[in-house]
């Protein structure tokens, strides 16, 4: 992994919002990196800071009220946190593409699809209208939009949901960016379309060498797509590692909780899924210790009082959990808990 080029690096990023209730730290001390051609998954439940983290990278959060409290984001050696609006405009769309969650509302209803894709080249004065159109038609065909010439002249409402998401992907890829960020790109699509879109992303990575950050709350998507995984909770990273490590050598109770709460093909008919009890922490006054302590069944006294330290388990695999401490009781987090209907916990 080390020999490949590192294109993005987040160092201790803390991102906050001014609100009427005070300052909310939505992203708390997040660090990770992304290599050329890699697919990194960020997983976590709603409100854990995944989207804010992703939008930080392109400074898409409205500023104000959002602001960087501390940290650095290096993209190809430049610190994004310190960029001016003009510098950001050059990176957005051209260097980093962004695919949003809801294709139904993410396209401008009053503009033709082709024009919306071409708009990415607006600052490139060297390209003629015909060149832009060629690039647009080319990428549309590549992302699987049939009859691209006809679609080019259509409006978003004339396309199906899956088609619209393909348009969004075409828009993110048309300038051949070195990296794209997908913020739950398949959440609002049905499963057959979801499979097609994921397949498409894998294929594009292979052909164009694009790095992808995949934000999702669906572990199935992670399993299918990602090389590495980042598990976020309460604005913090709780576990990070290669996908297999996180799935088979789970080292954080929250990750285990996520896995227990989804149904797999081997799930028996009368089996009851185990949800994670409780609700995510209030980020207005985040807990002093581990953010997950209040919902963690293994929580010890120390978990509530002191934030856990980073424990490296392998070259890529690390976790923030007191259970990894040498004095902690040994718990096997890799075992899937199963429970039959009617049984008491």
């Amino acid at each position, binding site marked *: 992994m080390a020999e490949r080029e590192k294109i993005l690096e987040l160092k201790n990023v803390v991102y906050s919002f001014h609100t009427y209730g005070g300052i909310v730290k939505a992203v708390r001390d997040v660090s990770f990196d992304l290599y050329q051609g890699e697919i990194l998954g960020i997983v976590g439940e709603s409100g854990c800071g995944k989207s804010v983290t992703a939008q930080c990278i392109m400074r898409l959060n409205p500023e104000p009220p959002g602001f960087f409290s501390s940290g650095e984001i290096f993209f190809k050696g430049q610190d994004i946190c310190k960029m001016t609006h003009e510098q950001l405009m050059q990176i957005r*769309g051209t260097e980093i593409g962004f695919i949003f969650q809801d294709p139904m509302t993410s396209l401008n209803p009053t*503009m033709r699809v082709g024009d919306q894709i071409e708009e990415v080249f607006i600052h490139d004065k060297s390209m003629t209208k015909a060149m832009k159109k060629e690039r647009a038609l080319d990428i549309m065909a590549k992302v699987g939009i049939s009859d691209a010439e006809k679609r080019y002249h259509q409006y978003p409402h004339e396309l199906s949901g899956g088609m619209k998401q393909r348009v969004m992907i075409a828009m993110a890829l048309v300038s051949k960016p070195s990296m794209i960020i997908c913020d739950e790109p398949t959440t609002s699509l049905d499963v057959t379309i979801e499979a097609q879109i994921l397949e498409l992303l894998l294929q594009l990575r292979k052909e164009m060498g694009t790095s992808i950050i995949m934000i999702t709350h669906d572990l199935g998507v992670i399993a299918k797509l990602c090389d590495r995984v980042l598990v976020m909770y309460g604005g913090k990273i709780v576990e990070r590692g290669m996908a297999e490590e996180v799935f088979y050598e789970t080292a954080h109770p929250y990750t285990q909780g996520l896995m227990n709460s989804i149904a797999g093909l081997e799930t028996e008919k009368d089996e009851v899924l185990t949800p994670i009890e409780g609700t995510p922490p209030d980020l207005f006054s985040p807990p002093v210790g581990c953010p997950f302590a209040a919902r963690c069944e293994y929580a010890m006294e120390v978990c509530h009082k002191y934030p856990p330290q980073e424990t490296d388990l392998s070259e890529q695999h690390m976790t923030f959990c007191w259970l990894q401490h040498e004095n902690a009781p040994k718990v096997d987090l890799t075992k899937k808990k199963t429970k039959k209907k009617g049984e008491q916990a």
Partner: protein
Amino acid sequence: MSKYIVKRVIAAVLTLLVLITVVFFLVRLMPGEPFTSEKLNPIVKENMIKYYGFDKPLIVQYFQYLGNLLKGNMGYSMKYTNKTVNYIIGSTFPYSADLGLRALAIALVFGLLLGVVAALNRGTRLDVFCVILAIIGTSIPDFIMGAVLQYVFGLKLKVLPVAKWAGFKYTILPSCALAFYTMASVSRTMRASMLEVVQQDYIKTARAKGLSNFRITWKHQIRNAIMPVITIMGPTVAAVLTGTFVIEAMYAIPGMGKYYVDSTNDNDYSMILGMTVFYGAFLIFCNLVVDILYGVVDPRVRIGK
């Protein structure tokens, strides 16, 4: 598209028919009659009643009126007995429309501008200023606005004529007085709509594409935000162009406005009907234009070809 317009025109004709019928019988229910002057010679009066056909049964008169209307003839006024209703509308509407168009242009240009500027500078002093202007505009009635303008610019500063309609200088004050209310409502609507559109996901998409703020506002925000303004423009255009009683009276403009009020006071049956038909037809036409404009601005409501 043409099929749609034909459908709408048929609906418009039916609407007008209902309007005419209701108004025709309603005015006859009003107390009094057109010829009430005491100086009127009884023989003359009888002749006039015969001349206007009031001696025939009401239902016959009704169909007679409809028949004449089909030929474009709205009959003679019962007050200005030597003038036809067609002539009165034809000679006064141009003034009202002239004034109305000027007012409308002012209202749209400044209303949209204020709305957009306020929304883009939300929460700043500029925004507060625009909002206050809009509140003043919607809450001050036009006769006060008209009088204040006359007093300040006509009497005190003596830069513009107080009244009459005789050249560009004369049009400024009444146009502004008439425009103020519309401008205020346009700016309020536009501001609210702009603020709603800026929350939309496609604005974020536009930002993620690296577009400049100017282009985002111009290409993505304004076009989507203008729909509600178009909606309110239909009835507004009809109302503003067909004259306003108060402003025209204050500035001595020979427009249609006074005939609305006078015809009712005088029981001038043919005039009341003529004004109603004209205004109704114009309003229906404006709303049709608005519906077609929707499709021009927003492809989602475009009618199948």
